[in-house]
């Protein structure tokens, strides 16, 4: 029952880091209640775009609306509208699993009894109940990832951003998590915006897809329309046909917080 209002819009979005143009005149929109996949090779500008949508980076130019709010001038209202699961680790290793979740719930103003119920349920859901009082630094990579996803689901936001959420997870866990996300989307009309390198994940779950490469949107549409457009049988082939087979390098700047594609490298 997704109505036709756009809950996320980006118009002529540009992000430049010194001589590097990470996002180059990108425009797209996501409808309320939609599951939207943002695909692209490494360094295409996915994470940079997500950071701009989620108030972590200021765009060089262009317009963004998140639930009607501008993430540059109305940061606070925009932040009230979304939740995010980051691509990079963002847990406090010196706190326990429970404390990390509790911290998040309190910051997002989830009322105490609801918070406790959800945390208990989510720990069970990601199968970390028996480790809830262990410090996160003792967790494996997969356990940390599961905990981060659980954390992103404590408050039920209007829009949920997931930046390569299932990276490093086995198919069972991926499947399990997607089922939960689809339920949230169906029952709470939560808009889901995700990036991934698993094409079958996008094919199965996304209603619409945008493909970004070298900072530009190269195609968008339903999974089927992308396959039709490129005359390919699978989304993976469609993706390769759209973005080429060349392997991409990511340029990481000092501090590792900027991942971008050097313009000079592609000339």
């Amino acid at each position, binding site marked *: 029952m997704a109505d036709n209002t756009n809950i996320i819009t980006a118009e002529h979005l540009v992000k430049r880091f010194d001589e590097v143009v990470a996002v180059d005149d990108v425009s797209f929109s996501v409808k309320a209640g939609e599951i939207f996949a943002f695909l692209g090779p490494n360094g295409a500008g996915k994470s940079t775009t997500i950071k701009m949508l989620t108030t*972590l980076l200021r765009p060089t130019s262009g317009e963004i609306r998140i639930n009607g709010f501008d993430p540059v001038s109305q940061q*606070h209202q925009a932040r*009230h509208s979304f939740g995010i699961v980051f691509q990079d680790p963002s847990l406090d290793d010196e706190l326990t699993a429970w404390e990390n979740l509790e*911290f998040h719930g*309190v910051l997002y103003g989830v009322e105490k009894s609801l918070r406790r119920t959800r945390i208990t349920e989510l720990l069970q859901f990601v199968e970390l109940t028996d480790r809830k009082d262990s410090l996160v630094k003792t967790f494996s990579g997969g356990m940390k990832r599961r905990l981060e996803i659980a954390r992103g689901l404590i408050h039920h936001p209007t829009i949920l951003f997931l930046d390569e959420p299932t990276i490093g997870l086995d198919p069972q866990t991926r499947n399990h998590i997607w089922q939960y996300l689809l339920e949230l989307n169906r029952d709470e009309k939560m808009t889901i915006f995700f990036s991934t390198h698993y094409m079958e994940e996008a094919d199965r779950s996304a209603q619409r897809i945008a493909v970004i490469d070298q900072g530009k949107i190269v195609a968008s549409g339903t999974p089927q329309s992308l396959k039709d457009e490129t005359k390919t049988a699978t989304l993976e082939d469609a993706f390769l046909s759209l973005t080429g087979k060349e392997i991409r390098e990511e340029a990481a700047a000092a*501090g590792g917080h900027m991942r971008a594609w050097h313009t000079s490298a592609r000339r």
Partner: protein
Amino acid sequence: MNAIYILWLRQIKRYLRARSRIVGSIGQPLLFLVALGFGLGPVYAAAGGGNYMDFLAPGIIAMGVLFTAVFSGIQIIWDRQFGFLKETLVAPVSRLEIMFGQTAGGASVALLQGIIVFCLTLIVGFRPDNWFMVPLALCFAALIALLFTALGLAIASMLDDMQGFQLIMNFIVMPLFFLSGSLFPAKNLPTALSVVVRLDPLTYGVDGLRGALTGVSQFGLGTDTLVLGIMVVILVAIGSWLFSRVQI
């Protein structure tokens, strides 16, 4: 309010879990107390200054608070490197609340450290002039803690990684400490030094602590409180502004 509390609680938990940090941070003040207190004591007494340990102890308590406070503030650089800062930054919480929570947490940790150093001074023979004034000394320690945690946060908001850490220690924290009148009386100094000492906000913190603990204050406790209070407000404001501009 809840956001401030949970940010504060996080710092306290991290501090209490880092036993090695607590033990490690006792070493330096103890060394200063023993080496300077007992080493320079006879010279100081011979020069007619009185009991050097009584003079030094409040200065070393201020040092303990200063170092821990700046360090706690700077911890957000680690948060940034390990990714946790993102989690705080995207939360629908005003930047002022985040700044308050972080400052309160770091300052509480620094205050605990100050209390530990105070206990050390008792072990090496220091005695407060009047035990009823100890709560007032705690208030001064708290002001020092707030001031320099906010300073640490403000500085850390401008840095991307730990590369700048040594720079901060050598060009900000050490001068703040050595030029604060912690180790020597801020009287009869060469004019240039005297001006610098009076510009160092820690000078007023040390003076306040010394006034509360030994009954001898140079500027008066009212002036000390006023200067520290104003500086806390200014630095929290600057820190919040810088913090609101942080990008990941």
